[in-house]
């Protein structure tokens, strides 16, 4: 009887071990991407859509076997644009195995979380504050810094002004949200305007959520603005230009917006007539460029289940987040292998991305290096034409306005 029981026990143990594939056989190799994004809050239209494309891009690569056999574990958190929620989520997920990067979608969050990023020796993305370029650390700007983009727009305005047969330089107005993001282009952009002889009017800043913008627009028009640069997150820029159109200002003033300006799926869809002729400077592909990007459209068709014609401008932002992570992961795996893969390896890998064509045209060449935290130095200009966003320039290098400011 005892012998029978012993045999039964051994057989049971052998069967149990054989039926435990996850632990006994090779575990799936993964690396984590923590996306502290906004799916339902104030900027969900921009960040949430970008995050969905980011996750879809990882799924696309995972289904093909991952990055050199390593699959990306995407962790998307709905922070509702609240720093406290983002920090709470970071506390929850910071010990995820091989967490290499946290995407922090606001400048305020990027600054608040930085001591933890530093302590945990991982890296984070931040939108566009030039301070992260001025003070090099483990935070990587996922765009061209705002002041560099503004400086590129000033160059374009001067060029456009002179092309139209006007002498000298134009008078430029600036209209944006009254918050650190809204003011950021001036930190270096103002100095750049002085450098190239542009008369940059005092910034007009308005509260987030303003319904009408006539007061600020009339003030800039009265001061003789030939061009007005508009910041915010679409539909803010669309609504500013809509008000400018209603006041008859779009006839005599050229409106130019920053990266988060009129989106083909948001503002352009709502107010195509008012936006006709408006110009967007962007470090991400927009409009028809995005619709013609082979990999992005393939991903969109496969995972978004809506027609490609509905792809928003923010698609290229999410695509860029994923592709830079993937390219960094590829280098890190080559340098240290999977067993030693950690945030420090990813940090070192990101410093080697300079001049890589990471996104195959969805952004300009990458600029991350030991001396640069800029995703790219390149921007492109687009114009709203017949209810679509079309390119009017090729990628062009943006001036270094960050270095002109004392942070």
């Amino acid at each position, binding site marked *: 009887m005892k012998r029978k029981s012993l045999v039964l026990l051994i057989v049971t143990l052998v069967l149990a071990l054989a039926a435990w594939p996850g632990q006994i056989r090779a575990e799936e190799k993964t690396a984590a991407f923590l996306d502290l994004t906004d799916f339902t*809050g104030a900027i969900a239209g921009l960040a949430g859509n970008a995050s969905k494309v980011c996750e879809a891009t990882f799924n696309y690569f995972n289904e093909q076997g991952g990055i050199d056999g390593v699959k990306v574990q995407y962790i998307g958190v709905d922070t509702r644009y609240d720093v*406290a*929620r983002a920090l709470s989520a970071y506390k929850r997920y910071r010990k995820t195995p091989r967490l290499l990067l946290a995407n922090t979608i606001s400048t305020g969050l990027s600054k608040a979380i930085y001591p933890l990023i530093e302590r945990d020796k991982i890296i984070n993305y931040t939108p566009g504050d030039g301070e992260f370029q001025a003070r090099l650390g483990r935070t990587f700007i996922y765009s061209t810094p705002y002041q560099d983009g503004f400086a590129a727009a000033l160059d374009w305005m001067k060029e456009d002004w002179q092309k139209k047969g006007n002498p000298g330089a134009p008078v430029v107005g600036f209209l944006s949200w009254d918050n650190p993001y809204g003011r950021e282009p001036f930190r270096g952009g103002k100095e750049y305007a002085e450098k190239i002889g542009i008369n940059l009017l005092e910034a007009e800043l308005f509260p987030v959520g303003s319904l009408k913008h006539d007061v600020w627009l009339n003030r800039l028009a009265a001061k003789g603005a030939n061009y007005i640069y508009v910041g915010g997150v679409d539909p803010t820029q669309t609504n500013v230009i809509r008000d400018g159109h209603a006041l008859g200002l779009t006839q005599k003033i050229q409106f130019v917006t920053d990266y988060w300006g009129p989106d083909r799926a948001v503002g352009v869809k709502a107010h195509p007539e008012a936006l006709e002729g408006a110009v967007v400077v962007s470090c991400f592909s927009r409009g028809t460029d995005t619709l013609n990007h082979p990999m992005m459209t393939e991903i969109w068709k496969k995972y978004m289940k809506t027609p490609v014609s509905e792809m928003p401008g923010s698609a290229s932002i999410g695509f860029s987040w994923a592709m830079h992570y993937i390219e960094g992961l590829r280098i890190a795996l080559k340098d240290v292998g999977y067993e030693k893969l950690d945030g420090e390896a990813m940090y070192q890998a990101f410093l080697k991305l300079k001049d890589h064509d990471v996104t195959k045209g969805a952004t300009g060449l990458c600029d991350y290096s030991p001396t640069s935290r800029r995703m790219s130095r390149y921007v492109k200009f687009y114009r709203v034409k017949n209810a679509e966003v079309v390119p009017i320039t090729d990628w062009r290098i943006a001036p270094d306005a960050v270095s002109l400011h004392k942070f």
Partner: protein
Amino acid sequence: MKKYSSKTWFLFLAVGVMAAALAGCAALQGGPPPAKLQIAPDKIFLTPDLLKNPPVFSGSGFGPKEIVVIEMILPPGVTVKGVPPGENAALGNATTDEKGDFEIKMGAMSILNTLFQVEWTPLIKPDFKQAKPLPPGTYEALATGMVSERVGRTKLTILPPPEKK
């Protein structure tokens, strides 16, 4: 009365001396004071006045210059938009001073997104018409030091809406 032998008395004495010595050692080592969290006021009505006069979180006993996250434990059946079931809902965050103390006002985003659970319009304005405020009740709140992992606890009561006269 029961009589104890001298051996038993000696054993009691030895245990007492050891306990006192251990307590003394702990005091001498200057172990960290317990982390504390206070909310003022700790009883609130969910009215728009909260945005003008937000609750103040204060705490002590954390590490110096440490990030502290203040959260609310959600009882079964209470959900907060964007917070997965079983997780805590964030109320605020602070960085302590050199002594490990902090004091902050609850931020507008946390008031809107967590206490009122508003929706957002395309113009980036909170939509109170679609808000789903947290139900009245007493909630446990905790502040956690992100480095020291020290935790301070307190209660926050959401009062039923005042009766309209």
